[in-house]
Each structure stands twice: as structure tokens, then as C-alpha cells.
């Protein structure tokens, strides 16, 4: 691509601020985090080079392994739940009933709010003695302090926050399917379940792909709401998600080097998961209705 010198100069002048921002605040940190992973730093004093000591320390750190497991379980609960509920809501919203737009906007409200603030609100709702849920149930359940209940509770709050947002995408995906496709299926004698399973679902595959990939990436990094609901990783560390573990390691234990190694592991993991999802979906056929 050519371009005249004057146009090139103007273009790079216009790009200069964002180029600076991208280079310094998005690309450089990836190099810096690798460097920090080979240093010892307590946030205040000087940094010293320690080579692979941090990597060894992280590999032997049972809490980090546990946080990866906790995050995996969290993702495995939240993603299917929010996807199924989001799709269900979208199917209801797509029946063309009056007021559908109103419900659609209403369902997105939790997602607009700060996850931290949502976490604080639910911490009260789930509080053992004076919380709203136990008052409603008329019994005392330790939603956030019981090691068996803490992770499901935290996951439920996350699902509650995201269902409406996920539904938005499915509504858009459903609208992109021409009515003629469904009419043809009905003429051929297909029942509602068959139509959904054999026609609607395959045609929603691009939407499903987008919802799953972005959902998994953000669920892997969940921090704010978990931090507000269960401080310090929850009872016996059952809600110690990996983003929280990195935060505590760096800013409470002041082991920045080890936290940096954990951050690199998380980054690699996210790239692998994203590529794997991409592969899995591209092996399957997608249907193009645009022609």
C-alpha cells in the first residue's frame, strides 16, 4: 500500500497518541511482567535478580495450584449456567410479545453496575443473620462462610449478573435467522424441540462461539465480585480464584516476583483456552445465511 508522503505524515501524527498508549500500556507490560518474574521485589525496596527462583516457588506453591482448580470449577459452573439461562431468556424475548424490549433492557441492568458493588449488595443479601435471603427462607444458612456453599454462591452471583448480557447476543443471533427457515421446518413436520435442536441451535453457532469465548476469558479473570463477597479467598480458600491469588501475592504478601510468574501462567492459559475454543468451533460447520 503506497500513500503520499504528506498523507503518511498526517496519519502517523494522528496515530501518535494511541500508538504511544498501546506500546507503553499494553505491549510493554507483557515484557515487564516477564522481567519481574525473574526478580525479587517487595513493592518498596530495590529489585534483585533471582533467575528462575520464582518459577520454582510458584510451582511448589499449593495455593496457586488450588486457585487454578477453584477457577476451573468456577468457570465450569458459571459458563454453562449463564449460557443456558441466557439462551432461554432470549427464546422467550424473541416470541414477539409486547414489552419484550422492556424486559430485555431490565435484564441487562446488573451487568451495567460495578461488579464490586454488586458483590457488596449480595454480601448483605447472603449475610447469615440479617441478610435478605435467610429472612425470606426463615432459616440460617451460611451461604458465604460454609466451605461447601461459598463457591456455588459466588458463582450464582456471577451468573445473575451476566444472564441478561448473554441474552442480548442470543436475541441478536435469533433475529438473524430468517423466518422462512423455521416455516420450512414446520411444513416438513418438525416439532418445536426438533426445530430448535436441528435448525435453531446449529444456526446460532457463531453467536454461541462468541458468547463462550468472551465468557470464558472474562470468567477466568473474575476478581471484583469474589473479592467483595468472600474476602481473602473465602473459607479454607474455596473461593481463592486465580486473579485474586495474584493480587494477594503481589499486594498483601508483597511477593511481586512470584505474582508476576502467576500472571504469565494465567496469560498463557488464556491464550491456550482461546485457541482451543477456536479450533473446536472451526472443526464444526457453520451455516452462512447471508446469500
Amino acid at each position, binding site marked *: 500500500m503506497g500513500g503520499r508522503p504528506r498523507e503518511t505524515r498526517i496519519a502517523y501524527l494522528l*496515530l501518535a497518541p*494511541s500508538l504511544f498508549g498501546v506500546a507503553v500500556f499494553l505491549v510493554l507490560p507483557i515484557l515487564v511482567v516477564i522481567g519481574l518474574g525473574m526478580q525479587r521485589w517487595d513493592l518498596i525496596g530495590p529489585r534483585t535478580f533471582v533467575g528462575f527462583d520464582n518459577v520454582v516457588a510458584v510451582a511448589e506453591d499449593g495455593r496457586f495450584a488450588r486457585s487454578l482448580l477453584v477457577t476451573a470449577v468456577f468457570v465450569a459452573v458459571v459458563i454453562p449456567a449463564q449460557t443456558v439461562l441466557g439462551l432461554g431468556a432470549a427464546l*422467550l*424475548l424473541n416470541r414477539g410479545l409486547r414489552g419484550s424490549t422492556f424486559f430485555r433492557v431490565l435484564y441487562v441492568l446488573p451487568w451495567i453496575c*460495578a461488579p464490586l458493588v454488586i458483590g457488596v449488595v449480595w454480601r448483605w443479601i447472603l449475610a447469615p443473620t440479617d441478610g435478605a435471603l435467610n429472612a425470606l427462607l426463615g432459616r440460617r444458612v451460611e451461604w458465604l462462610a460454609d466451605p461447601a456453599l461459598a463457591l456455588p454462591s459466588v458463582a450464582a452471583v456471577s451468573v445473575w449478573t451476566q444472564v441478561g448480557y448473554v441474552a442480548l447476543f442470543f436475541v441478536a443471533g435469533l433475529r438473524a435467522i430468517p423466518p422462512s427457515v423455521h416455516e420450512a421446518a414446520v411444513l416438513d413436520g418438525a416439532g418445536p424441540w426438533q426445530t430448535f435442536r436441528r435448525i435453531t441451535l446449529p444456526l446460532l453457532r457463531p453467536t454461541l462461539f462468541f458468547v463462550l469465548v468472551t465468557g470464558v476469558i472474562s470468567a477466568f479473570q473474575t476478581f471484583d465480585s469474589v473479592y467483595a463477597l468472600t474476602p481473602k479467598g473465602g473459607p479454607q480458600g474455596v473461593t481463592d480464584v486465580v486473579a485474586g491469588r495474584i493480587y494477594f501475592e503481589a499486594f498483601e504478601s508483597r511477593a511481586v516476583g512470584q505474582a508476576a510468574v502467576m500472571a504469565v501462567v494465567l496469560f498463557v492459559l488464556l491464550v491456550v483456552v*482461546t485457541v482451543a475454543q477456536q479450533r473446536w468451533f472451526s472443526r464444526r460447520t457453520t451455516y452462512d445465511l447471508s446469500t
Partner: protein
Amino acid sequence: MTRSSVLRDAATYLALGAGALLTLAPFLLSLMTAVKSPLQFASQPTLQPPNPVTGENFVELFGSRFGFVTPIVVTAQVVAVILVGQLVFSVFAAYAFARLRFPGRDALFWVYLATLMVPQAVTIIPLYSMMADLGLRNTFWGLVLPQLFGSPYAIFLLREYFRGIPGDLLDAAKLDGAGTLRILRHVVVPVSRPILATLTVITVVTHWNNFLWPLVITTGPQWQVITVATAGLQSQYNGNWTIVMAATTVAILPLLVLFLVFQRHVIRSITITGFR
């Protein structure tokens, strides 16, 4: 209308209504607690409606003991500065990518897109160390600098829009001898109002709600933003739920109003690209 379709519609409304109740209940319950006196909250059942409705928690919240005015002012300043920076610099970059021809354009745009995949959980530690080296910990600039120079997401969204502007419009301005900045101000920005409104709402929501970066880069009350102040209040006064729910109400309400006013713009843009 057949009987079965009436039943079907009724069932649909029932399910939609149940969803609405589940969505709204936590907000309404927290608001209810926020307008209840601490005495009533302590002495009567939790679900008892407020009697009388009182604003004392909010008065208390903004008073000297809890000092919630500062976090609101700081958050508003942070959001305003980031908003101006992001809009201006993103418009610049998006225009270059959309309407100018220059060597390296496609490769650079690909790099911008790739950075959308860099997770915040990974950059937080290196950014902290960089800000520490610059002596910007616990400063206003430490809070805003990483976000100030435009966002790849905004650039991506604007570029799509700018590509749709008719070439004649831009050529006419060029023939009149208008420079690039004048074209941007008098042609590009006026015809791009809807997308700029959408971006404004998205940027305000994202940075009003931001927690992790302000949490690590600031200490103490001087530069505390509203999310960090709410988290601090909750952990310090755990159990004083009337005051804590007043804080969450204050943190949520401005965004809900903003969103309801601009919801059409926001919902459309979410479904085009999926923001964040």
C-alpha cells in the same frame, strides 16, 4: 387467537416476569435498607418495609465520618479526564485507519486488535511497577495515565463507522482547503454523533465501575474512587448494612440513570461487538 396460544403467551409472560423480579429484587431490597434507620434495621425483621423512610444514612455517608463526597469527586474527575482523552485520541486513530492511506496501516491495525486480548489481570503488576518507577503511585495521573491515550476497542468501533461516511463529504471539505483537524471537527464528528454517544456511555460505565487498578495504585482517602471507598466501607463497617447499602445505592444510581437514557445506543453497540 387459539386457546393454546393464549396459554403459551401467558406462560411466557409469567417466566419473563419471574426473571424481572429476580433481577430487580436485590436492587429494591438494598434501596429499602438504605432508607431505613439503623435502629429499625437492628430491631425489626429484615424484610419489614422502612417506617418512616429516612435519608439519614445518606446524610451520614456524606458527612465527615464516612467522607463519601471525596470518592465521588475523584471518580468524576477520573472518568471525565479519561473520557476526553479516549474520545479525542480514538477519533484521531480511527480516522487515520479508516480514511488515510499510509504504509504499515494494516499491520498496525492488526497489532491494535491483538491488544484487545491482553487481560487486565496480567498487566496490573507490570503497570504498577512502571508507575512506581515514574513516582506516580497514589497520584491522579497514576490513576488515569494507562487509559488516557485511546482504547483499541473504541478505535475499532469508530473505524467501522468512519468507513461508512460518504467520500464526497470529505472531498468537498478538502476542496475547500480544510486541514485534517478541521475536517475532523466540522465533518467527521458531527456526522458520528450516535457512535460517539454510545462510546461516551461505554467509557463512563467502564471507568466509573473500575476497581482493581484504583485499588492497587492508590492508598488512603486522597485519591480513593467510589468502588474502592465502597469496598473499604463494607470491610470496616461490616454489619452496618444501612450505611453500606446507602453507599451501594450512591455508586449504582448515576449509572442506571445514564444507561436508561442511552439504552438504545448501548444495547445496539453491545450486540455489534461485545464491549470490553
